[in-house]
């Protein structure tokens, strides 16, 4: 990965999830992988090409040319439903903050991608499964609105289990809020490029995720409206091989391209340069 920019280093280090500090097992091919080597390969298995999930900060480091100027980084969620199940919702949030070193499931801000200045939003599956509640909806909306003011393209990297159940209908309404922002933004002739990574489902895929002018999917990502669990429990149909994979969606005409992680920055740069170039005089 590119050298860690300063703003990233300021954050508390992410605690390692696995017990073994040196080795990791590829969940797809069971290969034992040297962690340092895996990190250097952008966390893609050298044997089978499986793309491990990466966090929002790693993703920004991968995509941004240099500095990243964060927007609305201090927004935290309320507890509109006063939700309690096994633990109260605020406790779940507190746990995820400690676990992920993040305040919420999306980081938004400004940077350049291959020298094109953009607004960039990156979701993080390690925080509440990347679910969209009031904060995610607000930050995505703020990013789009600010880019409309600055006349910048928007890139959103999705990684989300969908709307956040613990915020109920408030979470659902974030789909409407963000969609309205995309509509306004798009009216200005500005480009939105979305990147669908593992997993992108529910309220995120069914709003800004699939509202991109160009939609790029990361290799192997699970993408769909209903997650497998909901499909299983609702209709109990046997699901075909590779169902809801990025490659499956490409074949079905739902995304523009499937790229490997190492190709993502280049693909984004290419699309952004084309979409932001001065129009040919008529």
């Amino acid at each position, binding site marked *: 990965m590119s050298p860690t920019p300063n703003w990233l280093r*300021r*954050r*508390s280090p992410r605690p390692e999830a696995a017990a073994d500090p040196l080795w990791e097992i590829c969940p797809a091919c069971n290969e034992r992988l040297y962690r340092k080597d895996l990190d250097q390969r952008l966390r893609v298995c050298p044997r089978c090409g499986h793309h491990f999930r990466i966090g929002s900060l790693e993703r920004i480091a991968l995509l941004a040319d240099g500095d990243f100027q964060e927007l609305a*980084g*201090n*927004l*935290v*969620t*309320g507890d*509109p*439903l006063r939700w309690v*199940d096994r633990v109260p919702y605020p406790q779940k949030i507190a746990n995820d903050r400690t676990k992920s070193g993040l*305040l919420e499931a999306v980081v938004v801000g400004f940077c350049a991608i291959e020298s094109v200045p953009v607004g960039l939003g990156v979701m993080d599956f390690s925080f509440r499964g990347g679910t969209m*509640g009031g*904060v995610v*909806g*607000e930050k995505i*909306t703020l990013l789009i609105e600010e880019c409309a003011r600055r006349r910048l393209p928007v890139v959103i990297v999705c990684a989300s*289990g*969908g*709307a*956040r*159940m613990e*915020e*109920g*209908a*408030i979470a*659902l*309404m*974030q789909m*409407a*809020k963000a*969609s*309205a922002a*995309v*509509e*306004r933004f798009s009216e200005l002739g500005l480009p939105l490029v979305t990147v669908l990574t593992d997993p992108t489902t*529910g*309220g995120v*895929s*069914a*709003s*800004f*995720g*699939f*509202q991109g002018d160009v939609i790029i999917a990361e290799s192997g990502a699970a993408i*769909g*409206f*209903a*997650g497998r*669990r*909901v*499909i299983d429990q*609702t*209709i109990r*149909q046997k*699901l*075909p091989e590779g169902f809801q994979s990025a490659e499956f969606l490409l074949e*079905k005409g*739902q995304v523009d391209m499937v790229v490997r992680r190492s190709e993502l920055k280049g693909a984004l740069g290419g699309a952004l340069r084309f979409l932001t170039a001065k129009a040919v005089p008529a």
Partner: protein
Amino acid sequence: MNLIVELEKPLTELEAKIEGLKRLNETQRVDFSGEIRALEERAQQLKLEIFSNLSAWQRVHLARHPKRPLALDYIAALDGFTELHGDRMFRDDPAVVAGFAYLDGLPVFVIGEQKGRDTKENLYRNFGMPHPEGYRKTQRIMRLAQKFKRPLLTFIDTPGAYPGIGAEERGQSEAIAASLRLMAGLSVPIVVNVTGEGGSGGALAIGLGDHVTMLQHSVYSVASPEAAAAILWRDSTKAEEAATRLRLTSDDLFEFGIIDEIIREPLGGAHRDAAGVIRSVLAADRRALDALMLLSSEALVDRRYEKYRRLGSHAELMHDRAAR
């Protein structure tokens, strides 16, 4: 089995008895009016006992009551409804009905999610769960509303967008995402009515509007209780618990500022006076449209933007930036 149908059984039996006595009263010489009055009082009491303190889960069942008025019942009460079919790309989705009609002489386009009355019809209507082509049909209607400058009325009654193989292959996410964008930018008034079950993005896909009404005993939530339980606890049988937690009643949604108006139902639910409830819904829609039609299309779209822009739940953490 619907919990409310079970609960109201003694009431239904009592009401049948009253009806029987009333018929006797008319045909026989004996005067039963005293008995009838007593039974009617008992029925009223029973209704209060059964319905004045429903749990969230019972409210979900009331919203799914087999006799509850369905989208087409409201639409049929408009004048001169003409149904328009199909998405022009794949097929006609019977889970969504759409077309044009007149509301007290006012030409409007209408869209509704349509459940069935019985098993056979429910299979045909897919239990009111639209496929992508259903939403693409609604997009056609929305564009027609825009082109011909007619207001749009929608009726929400769905457990959610259909979660199945074909729906995923044909882009359920894209269909909903496109509808949301289209509704956000539509330059004609949109009045939304949640008349039964409002489940997830499948409901919102016809629910982004200028004035949102909700029948008192309808429910509206981020996911159906069954889907929420599957997502949260990997167990759709915990739907009752999810229903309690989700805060999905009309009072909750009004408190959140998500809906603009609650339309009262008779004690026991809309099916106890379907015609009256349909009249109140359409009257509310007309009132809302009369006010909205005074706005310029620009003001309308701006107002709609602000309406959804406000909905959230967040605060700024003041000390955090310095710490990091």
